[in-house]
């Protein structure tokens, strides 16, 4: 077993560097809004869960929102996002209707997949969200297949495939990456390293801290960085997306991030020290972006609060919509299956 530092890498940046990451006002505001939408959506979902409106597993993305928002920005129409069971953020960032997202969590007819899939199985084809998989690692070969199809058809589309730090040891990940590297497919693999797989810290799952060390064996490029802003994340991801689109070359990226909530709603996350969580909170990309709006772009606290109110209202409406959405028709269980 190894001994990895649970604390976030120190952010050494000058005020100028900080400002540089948020230089464009509109982009920064846009990024903030999108991250906040995800956060407020999930907070709303969490409340609904505690009230018994949502059941099953509910894995929140709170803390990692910058990644989904950056991803949506880096992609073109027809590109694909494939992820595991922590996908609300991707759905919203890609433009899925919050009403449909929330209805899915409620298990209702107007849900993204008609209430059949639940939180772990979000799919929204038109928006580029290709799942929503809940068996750790088993979407990596599938996503590799999407990239294969793009190359086969020559359609110029790129697939971005996300997984957790806990997924990198499992066989299907290795097999998918082997094929992507061997066949030179237009795909970007992103490990969202949020330091934990359920209650297990990295030191009990990783033989080597730097996950991108593996890229060499797959003949892929690699990149590794701490997620501090949408802007920077977008820049790094976009380079890999371009590489995939233009050269049919896969990349392995490790994005270092943190989830502020437990693994799922049923996890009190007792395995983490308060000071650890606080240290990461200091670096919360959402908070940082809010600070930048105030400090760099002179937005007032009231401006931000007004925005927040607007978003909170949107997400409250989503919850109300979901609550009013009917249960799926009983016959829906026999749809889309040969019986």
């Amino acid at each position: 077993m190894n001994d990895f530092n649970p604390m976030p890498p120190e952010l050494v940046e000058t005020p100028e560097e900080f400002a540089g990451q948020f230089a464009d006002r509109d982009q920064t505001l846009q990024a903030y809004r999108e991250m906040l939408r995800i956060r407020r959506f999930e907070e709303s979902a969490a409340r609904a869960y505690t009230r018994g409106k949502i059941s099953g597993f509910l894995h929140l993305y709170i803390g990692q929102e910058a990644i989904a928002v950056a991803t949506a920005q880096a992609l073109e129409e027809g590109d694909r996002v494939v992820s595991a069971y922590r996908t609300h953020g991707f759905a919203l960032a890609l433009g899925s209707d919050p009403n449909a997202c929330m209805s899915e969590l409620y298990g209702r007819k107007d849900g993204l997949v008609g209430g059949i899939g639940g939180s772990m199985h979000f799919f929204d084809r038109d928006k580029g969200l290709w799942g929503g998989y809940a068996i750790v690692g088993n979407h990596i070969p599938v996503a590799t297949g999407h990239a294969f199809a793009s190359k086969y058809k020559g359609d110029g589309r790129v697939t971005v495939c996300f997984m957790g730090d806990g997924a990198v040891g499992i066989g299907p990940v290795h097999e998918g990456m082997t094929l992507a590297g061997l066949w030179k497919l237009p795909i970007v693999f992103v490990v969202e390293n949020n330091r934990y797989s359920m209650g297990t810290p990295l030191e009990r799952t990783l033989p080597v801290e730097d996950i991108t060390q593996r890229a060499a064996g797959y003949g892929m490029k690699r990149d590794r960085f701490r997620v501090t802003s949408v802007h920077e994340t977008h820049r790094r991801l976009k380079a890999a997306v371009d590489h995939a689109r233009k050269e049919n070359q896969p990349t392995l990226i490790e994005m270092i991030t943190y989830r502020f909530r437990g693994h799922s709603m049923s996890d009190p996350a007792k395995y983490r020290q308060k000071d650890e969580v606080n240290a990461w909170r200091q670096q919360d990309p959402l908070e940082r972006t809010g600070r930048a709006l105030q400090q760099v772009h002179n937005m007032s606290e009231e401006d931000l609060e007004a925005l927040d109110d607007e978003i909170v209202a949107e997400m409250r409406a989503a919850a109300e919509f979901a609550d009013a959405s009917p249960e799926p028709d009983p016959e829906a269980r026999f749809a889309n299956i040969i019986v």
Partner: protein
Amino acid sequence: MPNLQIRQAIRDAMAEEMARDENVFLLGEEVGHYNGAYKASEGLLERFGAKRVIDTPIVETGFAGVGIGAAMCGLRPIVEFMTFNFSAVAFDQILNNASKIRHMTNGQFGVPIVFRGPNAAAHMLGSTHSQAFDPFYAHIPGLKVVAVATPYDAKGLLKSAIRDDNPVVFLESELMYSVRGEVPEEEYVIPIGKADIKRPGKDVTVLTWGQGVPTALEAAEMATRHDIDAEVIDLRTLRPLDNECILESVKKTNRCALIYHGWPYGGVGAELIARIQELAFDHLDAPVLRECYEDVPMPYAENLEHLVIPSAERGLAAILKVCYKA
């Protein structure tokens, strides 16, 4: 007698066997520091240390294989699958290594291992997280397969499973970890291969196991209102089946219904029917019927899930039908 939850009975079985035999150890995801995703290993890390209670990365094939390899060296691993859904990625290890090595090596090596964890649908977990694996494992020669529904059975059978020299697939239930029951203070084991009559009766035999047991008992209770006295047999061991107990009951009642958590095609349900019609053909006054999941992947929505899973009402309907009262 102490009144325990199933999760505690399971923990106690593991603790007692670990205390008795230092070759016994536990490995799986979150079994240590987290005390088990469903707290079935609460306190074991603290008591036995990280050498014997091992948190693994998410590599089911890897740690199932490690368990098998360690078992070949004389250790007695208990491998926890967080749920049996995740055993699908380790299927080959169970099918090709655990079950075959003793036969294939002409007895040079044995694989005394237990694969345990919850099986079948819990509540609104969707199709990939609601599966029943008994049809897959009960099919395979070389394995024993156990499914438990009470704290007493859980403890006694898990102890037997850990001591068994064969690989044992031990199926628990997420929905039932909190079910309580009396468990003797003193040491006991329940032999693998013996069914248990959970409710004696004379009019119809109801066969069930695992999560089906409470539903079957409830259906049997409801049947009394139709003047039907149902005998409910909890199979407990799915491989090898307790033919004797099953046949004796069917020959007495002449009617049989199955109520279980799992899909209809093949599996344990069909096997029971195939055996009963073969071995008690002349005793059957009606075809054997089964109530189980509908033949579709498990939907997430509560109302749909509810429809797919056999209710006591559906169980009752089957009982009435085999009694020609419907």
